[in-house]
């Protein structure tokens, strides 16, 4: 296919990038405002006051005075914009926190201190990110390779036993909730057959790479199963479409080896939607694979988010939401740029 039009000038690319980055930042700001507001507005709608909100962050038999102190300490008595402004300021310049015998400086980016645990949020996020990243990246590689391969083979052997079996398995992978498959695989592979680690096993990569992989094997495969199914079906559909195109027939007629026809001409065109979705999926997962982390008891961002939401711990909720939003936005950006690389038609539009 001949390239049409002029090639993209550096100015165009720079402008495009700047515009996209600005959009990304704006998106993050909006997400933060919305999350912040929901946390405070919803209880107000139910008739709550600053004291009622503060009552959740004090002990079991806290008196009125203690609750009032907590409301003051956590800043609930200030207007919402002031509280939000304080939060933004902390991210940019840091903040000071009274831990009892003294005052601690929380350097930027300071995502605040947990209302309940009184520990800083940012170190928690940094600590938990490798767990989620390990889970996401490992599973992503497996599902991409596995799903795409199965999809390609299914498309090429359309109607065969392999095709039907593969798509059947794919259907179950998409339909079965991870909570179910997770508990089942743990019971079967970890506790009955003893082939894999029990739940709540995570070894950092830097401590022992082999054990890191062994501990994550079951969560990787289970999570990948869920996604691979979708990718197999997508790839199959895409391949069926592209392999039926005229230019593929032409390529074959030219005498190219089948392998080249499939990969360079068929698959490459079918990859575009795969790339898009892959980027989004990985971006989302980096924000926390909530169900997988919960089922396998992995101390990642997803588990952190669920615990924070369950205990109404705003600073933690804000921290993990912003990080998740950041990953999704970045993933979107990368996907859009990759799109241009994979599909020349987009490059010049």
């Amino acid at each position: 296919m001949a390239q049409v039009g002029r090639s993209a000038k550096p100015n165009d690319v720079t402008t495009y990038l700047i515009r996209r980055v600005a959009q990304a930042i704006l998106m993050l700001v909006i997400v933060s405002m919305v999350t912040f507001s929901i946390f405070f507005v919803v209880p107000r709608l139910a008739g709550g006051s600053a004291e009622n909100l503060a009552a959740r962050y004090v002990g079991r038999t806290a008196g009125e005075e203690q609750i009032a102190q907590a409301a003051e300490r956590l800043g609930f008595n200030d207007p919402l914009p002031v509280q939000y402004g304080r939060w933004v300021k902390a991210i940019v310049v840091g903040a000071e926190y009274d831990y009892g015998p003294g005052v601690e400086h929380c350097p930027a980016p300071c995502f605040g201190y947990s209302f309940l645990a009184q520990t800083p949020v940012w170190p928690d996020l940094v600590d938990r990110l490798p767990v989620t990243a390990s889970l996401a990246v490992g599973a992503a590689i497996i599902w991409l390779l596995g799903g795409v391969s199965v999809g390609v083979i299914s498309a090429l052997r359309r109607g065969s036993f392999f095709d039907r079996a593969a798509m059947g398995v794919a259907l179950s992978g998409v339909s079965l909730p991870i909570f179910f498959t997770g508990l089942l695989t743990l019971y079967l592979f970890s506790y009955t057959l003893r082939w894999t680690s029990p739940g709540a096993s995570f070894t950092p990569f830097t401590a022992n790479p082999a054990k890191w992989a062994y501990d994550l094997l079951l969560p990787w495969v289970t999570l990948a199963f869920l996604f691979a199914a979708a990718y197999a079906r997508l790839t199959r559909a895409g391949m069926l479409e592209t392999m039926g195109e005229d230019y593929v027939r032409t390529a074959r007629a030219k005498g190219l080896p089948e392998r080249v026809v499939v990969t360079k001409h068929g698959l490459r065109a079918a990859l575009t939607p795969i790339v898009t979705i892959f980027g989004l999926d990985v971006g989302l997962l980096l924000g926390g694979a909530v169900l997988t982390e919960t089922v396998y008891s992995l101390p990642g961002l997803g588990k952190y988010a669920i615990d924070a939401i369950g205990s109404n711990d705003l600073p933690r909720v804000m921290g993990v939401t912003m990080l998740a939003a950041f990953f999704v936005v970045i993933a979107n950006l990368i996907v859009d740029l990759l799109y241009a690389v994979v599909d020349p038609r987009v490059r010049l539009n």
Partner: protein
Amino acid sequence: MRKRLVTAAAIGAVLALGLSACQSAPSPDTENPVTPAFDAANGQIFNPSDAKGGTMKFAISEDWDSVDPGDTYYGLSWNLLRLYGRSLLMFKPAPGAASQELVGDLAEGPGTPSDGGRTWTYTLREGVKFEDGTPVTSADVKYAVLRTVDKEVLVNGPTYFGDFLNLPEGYQGPYKTPDMNTDSAIETPDDRTIVFHLKQPFGGFDYFAWLPATVPVPKDKDTGVRYKEHVVSTGPYMFESYEEGKGFVLVRNPHWDPATDPNRPALPDRYEITLGVEANDIDNQIIAGTLHVDLAGTGVQPATMSRVLTDPELKAQADNPSAPRLWYTSINPKVAPLDNIECRKAILYAADRTGYQAAYGGEFAGGDIATTLLPPQIPGYQHFDLYPAGPDNKGDLEKAREALAKCGHPDGFATKMAYRSDRPKEQATAESLQQSLARVGIQLTLVPLPTGDYFSLYAGRPSYRDSNGLGLMTNGWQADWNDGFGFLSQIVDSRTIRESGGSSNLSVYIPEVDAMIDQAVAETDKAKREQLWGQIDRRVMEEAVILPGVYSKALTLRGKGLTNVFINEAYGQYDYMMLGLEQP
């Protein structure tokens, strides 16, 4: 919400299976306490041993407030922290009623009262050291207690010391008012003596001395809210690592001297505690043998319960401890027609007690049908049943109708019942009462309320519950410690009710009871005090403002390879300090 329905149906099926499968299991083998049998660790020691070594693995599905002994209010935490902290006194670590006795831990023994119970003196044991070899002195205990007074910094723990000590006016704790003289509250005449001065006499002060707030804290190592990141140990184990929200590891404390500690066997070499493990996975891991104990101690999940009750081998690995906890329903005397005692009595007579029990999970996982406020393991408990529910415990409808006639509503009346919306057992209770009370014409409209705000905003707020006509409200209470004050003071004293909300007392407004509480609090004679609490229990029940539900029980699993297992009734859980491991 298909998934929710499926889950609910599954749980329902499981419960039905569990209840129907209550086959009799071999009774605990007291002759040979090593053969696994159902409830073998309840009332005696299962698999006694003094073999040392091994790594103990604990896990729990959620985090608790803090590992800092001065900043925690969970029974499981108070049970566990005895591994790394020594408070002045300890409940005797023995099975059965023996654990009601307070014995010396850091102190040589119970305190000596003087000044009519306003002053209490304790003598510390000799030779106790912190993990760095520094000797523990009475000043460290004084500091530990005083730091808990600052509820702005250490928000979680109980407030008994702040409420009862004769602290100087304006004292706000050692962080804000470090230079104030606090000798009016606590004196340390020498390194081994500590004297507490109270605002008013309190006969049960030994229970305060038992509180983890008396675990010594070295002032120069105190980092306030961050102290939990490295608690300085006085117990047989110390922190090797601590990861917020993830878990921690305890290893042997080289400066713990067993000669100073007759209570602790300190058998394992190491403890690994993991937080945030999925609840069903904990049960599966205990069964598979990769985990020893579920720290929560509240019993197995519904899915595991049916397996345990129907599989004889698993059932022999299970115990059925009672917790000092009562699940009950408050009957609001401020809402008509419940302002008439006979209408309240009608509810007590008509309620189906077996339905209440089933709502909480039946006889094993729910508990025993309650007829008093005090659970049986609380000293002072007297059995009585003022409102017998018929021979089958399903309610005495005839007496209920008589009461209704006396209160002027012979055909019944309508009122509202509130419950915590995300607690399925409370919803089941509400539905059960709705059905059983309808038999005599009492119509209940059910009102689900958010759990987080239940006491602060809704049921616990007098203006809300009265103006919204909440006649019945689900409730539950666990004793801070096993005596009348620990159990009853927060739930039957009308002076704990605040207009701003937050009290657990939703329905008891009896001035006579308040006076009886004051009398019991001041009584230094233990036997007399316990009798008074028993009388308070009865007096409250006579007023018909509480419908007792069940004395809580749980179905717990003993991990494989555990030794020295028994339920410590002070906690209603396995005694975490005493457990050991079978050696290969």
